[in-house]
């Protein structure tokens, strides 16, 4: 087995980088959650809320998730093609450049150098570095696929290809800007078009970072860790093409009831509802794969990560489209409901799948079992309960907040001031912080478990 994987050190490097940026991003997240309740934590310019929030989102999206995706992608590529990486030296350079870039990105965001466009906040010199990194990754993915020894390409590899091309297209087009200095630029688009292109990017960054590659991992590591073949190859083909086609139409559901032309909003709403079908095709494929073998939920510590992960993906892809419906958007948009939605996807789906995949990979490349299955179970329960506490609380908070904003007296005047709606949030924010702390404790257990598995000497 060991002779198939030739890039273990690169995979390990990305996996450990991912864990590191996960810890950094979560500490910043906890700080923010606390600052929502204690605004006095706005201690210094580089610790100010508006800057930290960007460090949190970018650190976890590009630091944690991308590094995890790189680690798992390189691992899956070598296994599924039965070939070594086409350019291992390039992958090694990518590992170094990636960590330097993320560190510089964090520093620049702490310093307030940002474009304000969500998940595309990095200023133009770092955008160029990101593009270079992505080309390095794409060259290895495509090169390895071209040189592969396995004739058929498994569904995970298609999702990887979709990830490579979609990220490239949306990242470059949304970040087009005119520089005025090394650290400052202005968007190439103005007003309505800038908003429309930003959320076309914003939504498809979610598709191509938090969906395509995570589905690739799901389709690979679920069968691998259970020994069960995926239920339907045909269903995965249908899911793949309709997902990739449908996603690009939906960006404007982030812009419901704004000055963006109404037809663009309505088209986005229609395609958002359409996306439920291909999303659930993957959910059903996962569930049916377990048919007759559900006892593995108890006997195999990894299965529950994958099954709960795909369940949260399923809930996420129902909740998302419903939020696109104008009437519901009118009540829920701009409230805490939306961070609640986002965190189910990231803390539930994405982290469940990436951390479980990393257990699998780390055990394989260390040539033995993981350090502690018991700790992995502790990790699972802590992040599950922490996430549920966090997200359920924010959904309720959002519904309350939306209702307060819309409440009117019999004479038609507003029942609550905006400040009333802020004051009503403090209890919810306290529970959210508690949920975040539980979740963080789970991730600390995970990090320890991964570190110990990675450190263990090879069995003789």
């Amino acid at each position, binding site marked *: 087995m060991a002779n198939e994987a030739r890039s273990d050190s690169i995979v390990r490097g990305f996996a450990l980088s991912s864990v590191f940026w996960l810890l950094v991003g979560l500490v910043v997240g906890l700080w923010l959650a606390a600052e929502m309740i204690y605004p006095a934590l*706005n201690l210094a310019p580089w610790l100010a809320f*508006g800057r930290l929030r960007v460090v949190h989102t970018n650190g976890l999206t590009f630091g944690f998730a991308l590094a995890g995706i790189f680690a798992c992608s390189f691992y899956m590529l070598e296994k599924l093609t039965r070939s070594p990486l086409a350019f291992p030296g390039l992958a090694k350079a990518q590992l170094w450049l990636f960590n330097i870039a993320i560190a510089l990105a964090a520093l620049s965001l702490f310093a307030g150098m940002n474009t304000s466009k969500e998940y595309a906040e990095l200023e133009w010199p770092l955008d160029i570095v990101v593009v270079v990194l992505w080309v390095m990754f794409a060259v290895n993915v495509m090169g390895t696929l071209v040189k592969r020894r396995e004739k058929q*390409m498994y569904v995970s590899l298609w999702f990887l290809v979709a990830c490579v091309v979609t990220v490239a297209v949306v990242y470059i087009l949304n970040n087009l800007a005119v520089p005025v200095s090394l650290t400052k630029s202005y968007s*190439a688009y103005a*007003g309505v078009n800038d908003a*429309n292109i930003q959320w076309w990017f914003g939504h498809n960054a979610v598709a191509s970072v938090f969906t395509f590659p995570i589905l690739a991992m799901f389709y690979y590591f679920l069968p691998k860790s259970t020994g069960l073949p995926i239920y339907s190859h045909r269903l995965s083909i249908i899911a793949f093409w309709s997902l990739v086609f449908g996603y*690009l139409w939906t960006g404007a559901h982030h*812009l419901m009831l704004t000055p963006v032309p109404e037809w663009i909003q309505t088209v986005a709403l229609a395609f958002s509802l359409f996306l439920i079908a291909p999303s659930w095709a993957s959910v059903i494929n996962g569930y049916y794969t377990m048919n007759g073998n559900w006892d593995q939920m108890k006997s195999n510590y990894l299965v529950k990560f994958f099954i709960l992960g795909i369940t949260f993906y399923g809930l996420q892809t129902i909740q998302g489209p419903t939020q696109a419906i104008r009437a519901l958007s009118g009540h829920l948009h701009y409230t805490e409901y939306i961070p609640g939605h986002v965190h189910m996807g990231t803390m539930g789906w994405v982290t469940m799948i990436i951390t479980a995949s990393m257990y699998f990979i780390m055990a394989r490349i260390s040539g033995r079992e993981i350090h502690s299955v018991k700790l992995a179970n502790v990790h699972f329960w802590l992040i599950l309960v922490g996430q549920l506490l966090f997200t359920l609380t924010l959904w309720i908070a959002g519904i309350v907040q939306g209702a307060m904003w819309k409440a009117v007296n019999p004479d038609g005047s*507003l029942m609550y001031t905006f400040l009333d709606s802020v004051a009503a949030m403090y209890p919810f924010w306290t529970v959210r912080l508690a949920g975040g702390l539980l979740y963080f404790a789970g991730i600390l257990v995970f990090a320890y478990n991964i570190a110990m598995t990675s450190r263990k000497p090879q069995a003789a």
Partner: protein
Amino acid sequence: MNFNSLYEKPVLLAVAAVAVISVGTLVTTFIPLFLPSTQPVSPLIKPYTAIETEGRDIYIREGCNNCHTQTVRPMRTEVARYGDYSKPEESAWDRPFLWGSRRTGPDLARVGGKYPDSWHYRHMSNPRSMFPTTNMPSYPWIARTKLDTSLTARKVKTLGFGYDDAEVVRQLAAFRTTVTAPAYPSAQVRSQATPVALQGEVTELDALVAYLQKLGRDLKAAQKTAVGSAVAEAAETKNPFGGSRAAEEEGEKIFKENCRTCHGEKGAGGFGPKLATTVHKFGGSDAELFASVAGGRPGGMPSFLPQLGKDRVWKAVAYIRHLEKEGR
């Protein structure tokens, strides 16, 4: 063709994926780039001044958009809370747009002119001194930092605001004179927020406040003056459609759609006054009738200028004249 071969050819698969993602991209983002509806321009919405541009960049640097939106939705309670809903032309000069995605704090699209400058100086320095339950953090250091204007001229040029370097210098100097003058209405609060050494300079907070005061200002001014200036203009002219049979017929159609429910069939009166008469409650000259229809009157007459526009208001007036003749 054997479709399975697609899954054996990675380059073909990548090309197919690009083609598939391009469809939605073209329809929902590329084509709209060239539509008038995404880039409306109004002469009433002015570009940012040099100082407002710098203030906006501080807003961006501090990530204010992470907690504050700048788009009022067309919903009853939003309009009641913030003011008129946002129009596309209001963002015409915005690169980037700053509509935001979350209201941890209130929307700011209409904050300009809502409070005096002194309110903002105090609020940015210590929001909890004004609102004990707010979670808006204090940003006292913004007032303690001198505004860097070394790039202002280049910024204004890049953004295409249409005034030159000399004008930038003039605006910055004029602004400095205004905010540092003892007669500046917010001078006392400003001096409390600003360190002594910087009281004669322009600080980052000065620029930020100038930017906040610009938000929604042009739209409010335009709406306030649109009716006023149309009425003033009408006072000096006669009905351009006066005596035109075609205009009276068009006016009749407008009347049936907009006026009949209150003023009755052929202006015979209803909950609204009788119009088929020469004696009008608010005056019967062309200008007075125009003012009534365009701007509305106390006691229930709404303003019709926004929905009808000047020409159609005149045509309605022409029809009312016609009714006078019939009523005699």
